[in-house]
């Protein structure tokens, strides 16, 4: 099968590139436009950026915090139902597993668009979208982790007459807690990045500002904002990496 794979991949790639219509002439012409982007870089408007973007950046972070916490903790019980190890009832297992798979197929921005239409523009839509986003990722990662836990303690709990939920809580949950924590921090990082973008469709946060400025080609304002975002994202990431190392 691998013999077939490679030529297919290559042909498909070439085909894709043609579809995209890479055109050398256009590219050269457009390259001349680069000054629109690069000129303002030398004249960044920091005060403006700091004044306007700080509030939005805070919003972005709050959206990420709320959504990742809610999404991950909702996904926790769901994951147990979506794993063969802790859910022997075939019907519910397939229902929960399919639900998690389904949620994974929709990109976060699509969720955001749908929620803005349903509950209105603003950060709430963003939170809802990222909750789905977090649930999807945590659900997949966690249910796979649960699939490979040690079933012995679970058997011991059942043998002592404990109810199913009690057995899972006392003997399965503690086994995956370190993983849950690591995944949570990872998802939190992802949410911060995603939250930046959500503003683009009106779901709150920094993206909104970037979008308005982009329309007016105010790259002198966008650039400092992007730099601020960069710093914030890297700082949060470093913090989260440090936290992960400390805990585990």
């Amino acid at each position, binding site marked *: 099968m691998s013999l077939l794979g490679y030529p297919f991949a290559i042909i498909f790639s070439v085909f894709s590139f043609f579809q995209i219509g890479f055109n050398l002439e256009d590219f050269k012409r457009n390259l001349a436009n680069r000054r629109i982007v690069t000129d303002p870089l030398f004249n960044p408007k920091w005060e403006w950026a700091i004044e306007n973007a700080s509030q939005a950046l805070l919003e972005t972070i709050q959206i990420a915090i709320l959504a990742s916490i809610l999404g991950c903790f909702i996904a926790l019980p769901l994951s147990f139902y979506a794993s063969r190890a802790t859910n022997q009832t075939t019907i519910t297992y397939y229902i929960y597993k399919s639900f998690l798979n389904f949620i994974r197929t929709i990109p976060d921005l699509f969720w955001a668009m749908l929620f803005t239409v349903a509950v209105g523009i603003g950060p709430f839509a963003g939170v809802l979208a990222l909750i789905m986003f977090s649930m999807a990722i945590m659900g997949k990662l966690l249910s796979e982790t649960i699939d490979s836990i040690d079933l012995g303690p679970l058997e*011991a709990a059942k043998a*002592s007459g404990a*109810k199913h939920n009690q057995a899972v809580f*006392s003997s399965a949950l503690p086994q995956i807690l370190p993983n849950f924590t690591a995944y949570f921090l990872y998802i939190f990082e992802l949410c911060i990045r995603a939250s930046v973008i959500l503003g683009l469709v009106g779901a709150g946060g920094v993206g909104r500002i970037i979008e308005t400025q982009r329309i007016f080609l105010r790259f002198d304002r966008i650039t400092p904002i992007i730099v601020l975002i960069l710093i914030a994202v890297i700082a949060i990431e470093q913090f989260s990496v440090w936290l992960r190392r400390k805990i585990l």
Partner: protein
Amino acid sequence: MIEFKNISVTYPGGVKALNNVSLEITEGDFVIIVGMSGAGKSTLLRTINNLVKPTEGEVIVNSKNVTKASKKELKAIRSDIGMIFQTFNLVNRSSVLKNVLTGRLSQVSTLRSIFGLWPKEDKEIAFESLNKVEILEKAYVRGSNLSGGQQQRVGIARALAQKPKVMLADEPVASLDPITSRVVMKYLKQINQELGITTIVNLHFLDLAKEFGERLIGLKDGQLVYDGKVNDVSDQDFENIYGRAIKSSDLLGEED
């Protein structure tokens, strides 16, 4: 009293683990089951609390039919049966105390157990059980930080915390050294004698069986081939059970 009535167990895949085994175990008995790996010892033990469902036959424990019990009845029956395992089956990341408390789960509401709101009496019982196996001082140590022998003692404490009428031990010392093995067997014997708990132990070390056993049951290829007092057993009987001459791997060995 435990009654096995014509128990047969066939696993999916066709393996016949038990073949028409009938047996009676009196209350307070200390029984040791020996046999080769695959002879059906584990399977037999697990039909007592229905962790394995017999394909044919029934098991009656203290007048209650385990095999035909409903889910609710089964939980009640199981709460009176304590079990310890070859691999200890402790929750590694939890403390010793938490592990022992899982023995009380059947007596406490789900909500309470989730939030760790154990009633005082249950905690007392847990501490007492730990004390009985002389490991009370390790109550807040993580399970994985203990040695094999200590972990098995925690396993015994967990089973004791259930205040069981029956104690099942599935190869409890198979992964322990000679000294620790004897310590564990000593505790099991002690519990049986002091508290009158019917105890059934799977072993494959013959010398241990002779040292601690009272009644011996031999299984071979899923069938009952010996049932009698340990003192009456000859080396020939052992060879019948194992179907071959005794090897050194069948003996635990001396204390160093």
